[in-house]
């Protein structure tokens, strides 16, 4: 086993990880920072984000307004001090990214432009056409090359956190090209591994989004918070789950059912006119829109296709010029993957799992309960999304909190320097032996068999609408799958060089634990709030009993223990979460 000694390890090279590494390098250029990623950073799933990133910039907007939209969008399950910190730091982060070269879309006068997004009162979404995530990621990656303090370990797979006496001491990783183990001894580490969308079959996520960091921290006793809150994006392509950005609706696209009827007006988002207006109809929040699709499906008003039921996203009235200028990627995707010319035909869409609102519990400074361990981005739960994330808050989040986590981890490395110890190496060696044994196992089930059962069970039991019976079935199935996983996964690939089947098996272990925490957290929440909807007598929000966060605690081979913690409410007391209604017509830019 090779040992690399550094000050700070950043796990994950997506937007949050790159921002964290840059922040750490800027806070002290003498630090040794290892940026470890299982794919080359510019391939990370941030690349697929389309719509944009929120930050107050217009004179008719305010931080209070962004705060209110976020807190009500999250159905009052947000920690309000975290939201306050967040909205205040979004603007500086967007400006900084512009100064680093991000090609934000511009107005004729040369200033940056902003677009409408669901659940936001005012235009505050900074965008780079509909390739916002791509440009953010490449800008950060290319910028990171400037800093000698950042040493990249591309295609290194993090397999274990090495913890001693309640503090992070190291990270065990596999060099994918050779299959060799590396131990990164460190003073602090930042987990930036993204979400866990791949635990559902119909999802918008890249194949790499397997909850790695969540499971790594969870196994070391860090709680996962609010895992039942899973966001379904209302507009993805059927079958593949490829994302069709909310920016389509931000630019004025409409959703119609098989009768050409704008069905959202039947679900508390209407009336239709005047159109467009913010926080109404197609500019409502994602949870409400995905739930409306489910009801249309029950009523038999969706369109059947070989890849499942859909509704139609109609952009035609925007005209070819605006479609090509503002939504070039969507035009390309619709053409390639479903053979639709968005200028001439509506795009078939349906909901797909998109985002993990919950994650590794951190405070506003991105610190976890393990000394020296930080988390930022989708893998974390810093408390800003509550029960439903607003679109364009997540790209902003990974900049704001990636930066905070990187600065925090650098500070921690100064305050509490790395300690060498034989114990750390012993722990790493024993983990490496256990992981190596997976390659040579002679009995067990096929990886795909276990994975497919997990996907089916999560779709059936922990979907847009939930019941105790289906949730319990999912919990039981996850326990069963975990037991079978422990009994063995039989790999075809017995080599060590670039063994993606082996890594897939390790990822499946991560996914099963994360999926199980989602199912149990959902079972424990006997109310409906945001993206968590129950059909079994708990159809309403219940502030008396459930205005609180869920916590899942790792419990070895058994199911996670679930308990709760209070929500921090400082400024905005819970009230009814209203969309639609009267309002004035919005001016489209």
């Amino acid at each position, binding site marked *: 086993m090779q040992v690399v000694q550094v000050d700070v390890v950043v796990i994950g090279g997506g937007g949050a990880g790159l921002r964290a590494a840059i922040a750490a390098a800027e806070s002290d250029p003498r630090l040794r920072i290892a940026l470890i990623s*299982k*794919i*080359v950073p*510019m*391939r*990370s*799933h941030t*690349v*697929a984000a389309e719509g944009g990133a929120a930050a107050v910039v217009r004179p008719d907007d305010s931080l209070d307004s962004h705060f209110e939209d976020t807190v009500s969008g999250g159905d009052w399950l947000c920690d309000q001090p975290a939201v306050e910190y967040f909205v205040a730091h979004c603007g500086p982060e967007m*400006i*900084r990214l512009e*100064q680093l*070269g991000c*090609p*934000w879309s511009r*107005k*004729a*006068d*040369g*200033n*940056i432009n902003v677009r409408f997004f669901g659940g936001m009162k005012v235009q505050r979404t900074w965008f780079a056409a509909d*390739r916002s995530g*791509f*440009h953010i990621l*490449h800008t950060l990656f*290319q*910028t990171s*090359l*400037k800093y000698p303090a950042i040493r990249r370990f591309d295609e290194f797979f993090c397999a274990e956190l090495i913890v001693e006496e309640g503090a992070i001491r190291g990270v065990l990783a596999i060099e994918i*090209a050779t299959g060799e183990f590396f131990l990164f001894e460190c003073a602090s580490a930042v987990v930036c591994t993204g979400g866990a969308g*791949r635990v559902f*079959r119909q999802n918008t996520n*890249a*194949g*790499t989004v*397997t909850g790695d960091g969540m499971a790594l921290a969870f196994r070391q006793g860090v709680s996962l918070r609010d895992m039942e809150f899973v966001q379904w994006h209302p507009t993805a392509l059927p*079958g*593949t789950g490829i*994302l069709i950005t909310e920016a389509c609706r931000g630019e004025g696209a409409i959703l119609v059912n098989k009768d050409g009827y704008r069905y959202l007006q039947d679900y508390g988002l209407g009336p239709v006119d005047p159109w467009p207006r913010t926080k109404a109809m197609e500019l409502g929040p994602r949870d409400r829109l995905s739930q409306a699709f489910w009801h249309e499906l029950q009523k038999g008003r969706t369109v059947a296709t*070989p*890849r*499942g039921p859909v509704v139609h996203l109609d952009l035609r009235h925007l005209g070819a010029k605006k479609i090509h200028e503002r939504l070039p*990627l969507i035009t*390309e995707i619709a053409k390639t*993957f*479903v053979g639709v010319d968005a200028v001439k035909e509506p795009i078939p869409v349906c909901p797909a799992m998109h985002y993990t609102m919950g994650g590794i519990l951190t405070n506003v400074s991105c610190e976890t309960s393990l000394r020296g361990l930080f988390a930022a981005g989708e893998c974390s739960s810093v408390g800003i999304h509550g029960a439903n994330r607003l679109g364009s808050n997540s790209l902003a989040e990974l900049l704001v909190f990636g930066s905070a986590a990187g600065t925090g981890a650098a500070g921690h490395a100064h305050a509490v320097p790395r300690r060498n110890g034989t114990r750390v190496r012993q722990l790493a060696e024993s983990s490496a032996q256990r992981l190596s044994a997976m390659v040579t196992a002679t009995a067990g089930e*096929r*990886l*795909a068999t276990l994975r*497919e059962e997990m996907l089916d069970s999560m779709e059936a039991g922990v979907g847009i609408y939930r019941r105790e019976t289906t949730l319990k079935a999912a919990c039981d199935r996850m326990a069963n799958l975990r037991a079978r996983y422990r009994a063995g996964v039989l790999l*075809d*690939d017995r*080599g060590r*060089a*670039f063994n*993606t*089947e082996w890594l*897939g098996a390790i*990822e499946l272990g991560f*996914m099963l634990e994360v999926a199980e925490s989602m199912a149990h957290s959902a079972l424990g929440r006997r109310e409906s709030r945001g993206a968590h909807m129950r059909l079994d007598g708990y159809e309403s929000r219940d502030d008396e009993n459930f205005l609180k966060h869920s916590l899942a605690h790792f419990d070895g081979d058994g199911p996670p223990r679930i308990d709760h913690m209070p929500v921090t409410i400082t400024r905005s007391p819970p009230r009814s979460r209203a969309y639609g209604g009267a309002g004035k017509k919005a001016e489209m830019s």
Partner: protein
Amino acid sequence: MESREPRTDMSASSTRTIIIECLRFDPASDSEPREQAYRVPFTDDMSVLEGLQYIKDTIDGSLTFRWSCRMAICGSCGMMLNGRPALACETFLRDFRPGPVRIEPLSHFPIIRDLVIDQADFLAKLESIKPYLIPAEDKSVADGTYLQTPGQMDDYYQFSQCINCLLCYAACPQYGLNRAFTGPGALALLHRYNEDSRDAGTAERMPIVNAEDGAWGCTLVGYCSEVCPKAVDPARAVNVNKINSAKDYFLHLLMPK
């Protein structure tokens, strides 16, 4: 790295199959690459990537390839498909009917395993061209954003669309002959920064352009632009740089440093 079985909602016409021939190589057991053929059932909407995932899930878990976003934006799944560089996720099996389709790793790169190539050379080149803004003077957040008109943005925007998928390197005969050539993707990105109105780093990047293995390494074949999945047109970037390089040369004759 997790992959998915083909969907179960296939229509009755899904009984069609196609032969996929893959180049295989395991450094631990093979002295040179070999071939292996798989018969794969497919539907009209199935990508080549989904065909490979089907093989990995149900026939042979040792078949090795890179993939991630499956929507042609991450740049992971570049391969040679019947001899032409392409992204496996946005190329469809139906277009190779009746088959077979031959899949090989991207040309001109060392093979690590099966369809996985070593990208280290490209990453080093990317780093060498200083792909970040080098501003005339540092700005603080309080200074706000730069002004840049849509017209100024048009000067470089096309060249900022590169997803680093390396198809252009696999298409470039010059890179095949001389691995020192900076190559189309990296030169296009260099051009992207030089053309950005916010950048003042052209002088720092011109030595890379002027070098023998810079823009002048290109022999104007243009296949790079033909295979580019994002219409970046690296050939145009490289050849504009030849003009810039020539100007730079004459300027230095007139006004030596």
